[in-house]
């Protein structure tokens, strides 16, 4: 009994130490985690839920975290897995709501009234919307690889770690994902492409 109690107190002390470490890592990574979650979900409130869910999972399994891996890579793996779970849950719910779409099966997308916004903000919002639609039209694996590379700026090796796959697969997913996104943007928002093209020249 005394032995068990001592162990519980020892563990509580270790818990205190690892909690402080976790909080510090959380502060360092939450902005990046939010960007990733936002690009994965395409919506602020869903992104916040996803980040919250991921950090709770991360904290619960923090004792399993291997310090030889950057915390962000470990966390992003949790974020992407939590996102896949959420998408699966949503797919089940969506089957019923799809019947309420247009005659051609299309969904109605809510569009904000842009008349009150300054030009720069409108432009930024448009880019975000077009990009998000492009990302959402992609296969999940390509989408994740592209987001990790281009939103998070991760190296292929780190992406391979997050996605639990080989560097060759990452290379191929990024390339195919970017090509898909490029085709999507060129067909849906050619003006955006031209603008960025001018900026690059």
């Amino acid at each position, binding site marked *: *009994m005394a032995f*068990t109690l001592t162990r*519980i107190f020892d*563990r*509580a002390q270790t*818990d205190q130490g690892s*909690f402080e470490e*976790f*909080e510090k890592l*959380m*502060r360092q990574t*939450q902005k990046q985690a*939010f*960007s990733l979650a*936002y*690009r994965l979900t395409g919506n*602020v*409130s869903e*992104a*916040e839920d996803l*980040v*919250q869910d991921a*950090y*709770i999972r991360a*904290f*619960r399994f923090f004792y399993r975290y291997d310090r030889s891996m950057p915390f962000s890579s470990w966390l992003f793996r949790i974020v992407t897995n939590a996102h896949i779970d959420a998408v699966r849950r949503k797919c089940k719910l969506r089957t019923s709501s799809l019947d309420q779409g247009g005659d051609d099966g299309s969904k109605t997308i809510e569009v904000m009234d842009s008349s009150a916004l300054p030009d720069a903000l409108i432009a*930024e919002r448009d*880019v*975000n919307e*077009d*990009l998000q639609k492009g990302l959402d039209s992609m296969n999940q694996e390509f989408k994740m690889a*592209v*987001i990790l*590379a*281009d*939103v998070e*700026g991760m*190296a*292929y090796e780190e992406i391979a770690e997050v996605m639990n796959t080989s560097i060759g697969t990452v*290379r191929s997913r*990024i*390339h195919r994902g*970017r*090509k898909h*996104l*490029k085709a999507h*943007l*060129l067909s849906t928002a050619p003006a*955006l*492409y031209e603008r*960025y*093209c001018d900026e*690059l020249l």
Partner: protein
Amino acid sequence: MNCFKVSHHLSAYLDSELTGSEMLAIRSHLGICPHCRAELESLKITKRVCAVEVPSATPGFEERLSEVVRSARQNGQAQAWQRYFSTSLSVAVACVIGLGVFTSYLFIKHTPAAPIKPVSPSSVAQSQPSLSKMHLVDNPAPNSGSTGQEVQQEREYLDGADPLSGPASAIAYADR
């Protein structure tokens, strides 16, 4: 390198994720091929569009997040203590039950089958000098009211119990 091979490596080239020799081979191809150069430019734009800043989280999100993780931690700790106390309680209850069963086992073991005779202190002194004997003196069998058959049935039940299933049967076996 031909266009087909180069086009497959353009994203990795853009991200500088190729070996030195591969980078050089692609660079020299790009110098002579406008088609691959155009393809590279379009990938560059795609990459740039992706890097557009995301909207901010709602005000107070950081604090809410810390709060949620902190309360998840407190819930975890509370659950650990709850588990500890419920385990201790179960062990204590099992011990009490075990002691009860052990006592009744000793009581049954040394109760003579019918006909029941009153036990005199001198006859007890002649039988085995054990702890069980003292116990019998304190709890005379005649008052129990059980018949010889009932005692036999109860004994069979105890004998058939799994020795590893709990403290009660383990003690019963150890006594034999």
